[in-house]
């Protein structure tokens, strides 16, 4: 049972070739583009949602920060669709792999920080020391602030991986518990089944929220550095 529990997180392969690439390339098929002003229902709803999220996210940035709007909106759409597709039965979620989340987090964070250091050095360095600290504490606080800066991409990646993986594991466990209890004791099966339904609703929320949090934090790092 232990081997089976984590077997759904192994990236699928076709004869040794990674089929995970095909699965990562699948969400764009669900988001068509159009050159017309009035479209079919699918494109209209998607464009409405994208307009809503992009307005909500990009109002707090100045002109220089808004050049990142394409990147951030496509990021939140990618993470949200990938997480939601992973809730379908038997499907593979790419965001459970730490490698992919690191590949998303490190370049975005590094880009924001390097942009800040190139344009406004004084402002960027000022983040290392909060205002109003007593003088003897300064060396230690600079070290602590440096560490907290360097840990930001790690935290981004690990947060997304851990949340999605933990949710999937919980659903596996409670689902198999429901199945096992169905022959033993029926009322407790109903209780566990209710827990499963609640957990599924939570997972849908977590899928969306994690996308939002990831993108929000990247935009926050961007705001600090523009």
């Amino acid at each position: 049972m232990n081997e089976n529990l984590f077997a759904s997180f192994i990236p699928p392969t076709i004869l040794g070739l990674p089929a995970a690439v095909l699965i990562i390339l699948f969400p764009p098929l669900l988001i068509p583009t159009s050159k017309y002003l009035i479209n079919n229902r699918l494109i209209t709803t998607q464009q409405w949602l994208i307009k809503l999220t992009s307005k909500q996210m990009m109002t707090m940035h100045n002109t220089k920060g808004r050049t990142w709007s394409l990147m951030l909106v496509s990021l939140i759409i990618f993470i949200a669709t990938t997480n939601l597709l992973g809730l379908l039965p038997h499907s593979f979620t790419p965001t459970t792999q730490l490698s992919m989340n690191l590949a998303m987090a490190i370049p975005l964070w590094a880009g924001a920080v390097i942009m800040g250091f190139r344009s406004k050095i004084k402002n960027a360095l000022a983040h290392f020391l909060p205002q109003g600290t007593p003088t003897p504490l300064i060396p230690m606080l600079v070290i602590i602030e440096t560490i907290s800066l360097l840990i930001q991409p790690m935290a981004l990646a690990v947060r997304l991986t851990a949340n999605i993986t933990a949710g999937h594991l919980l659903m596996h466990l409670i689902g198999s518990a429901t199945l096992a209890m169905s022959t033993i004791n029926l009322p407790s099966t109903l209780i566990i089944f209710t827990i499963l339904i609640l957990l599924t609703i939570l997972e849908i929320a977590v899928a969306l929220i994690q996308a939002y949090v990831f993108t929000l934090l990247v935009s926050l790092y961007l705001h600090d550095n523009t």
Partner: protein
Amino acid sequence: MASVVGIFSHSSVSVPVKDKKLLEVKLGELPSWILMRDFSPSGIFGAFQRGYYRYYNKYINVKKGSISGITMVLACYVLFSYSFSYKHLKHERLRKYH
């Protein structure tokens, strides 16, 4: 399927018909028909593009498209993922001896 040059997403793009469609090919001619198909990368990509636009224009790009247009795609995705995970799912069957 007709061979085309360039992107085609709707039928008003003019199409030179070089070969017959699959349902018009007689059974004895099937091997030669398969050999006549364009199996180059651009040919295969064209086949995927034609298939995608056939589905898109029939189910999604209509005035009152319903949710079944996208639900069929998700159902196929579930079956596709099931075929990948069959290898380790078969150990979880309810059998006395595995």
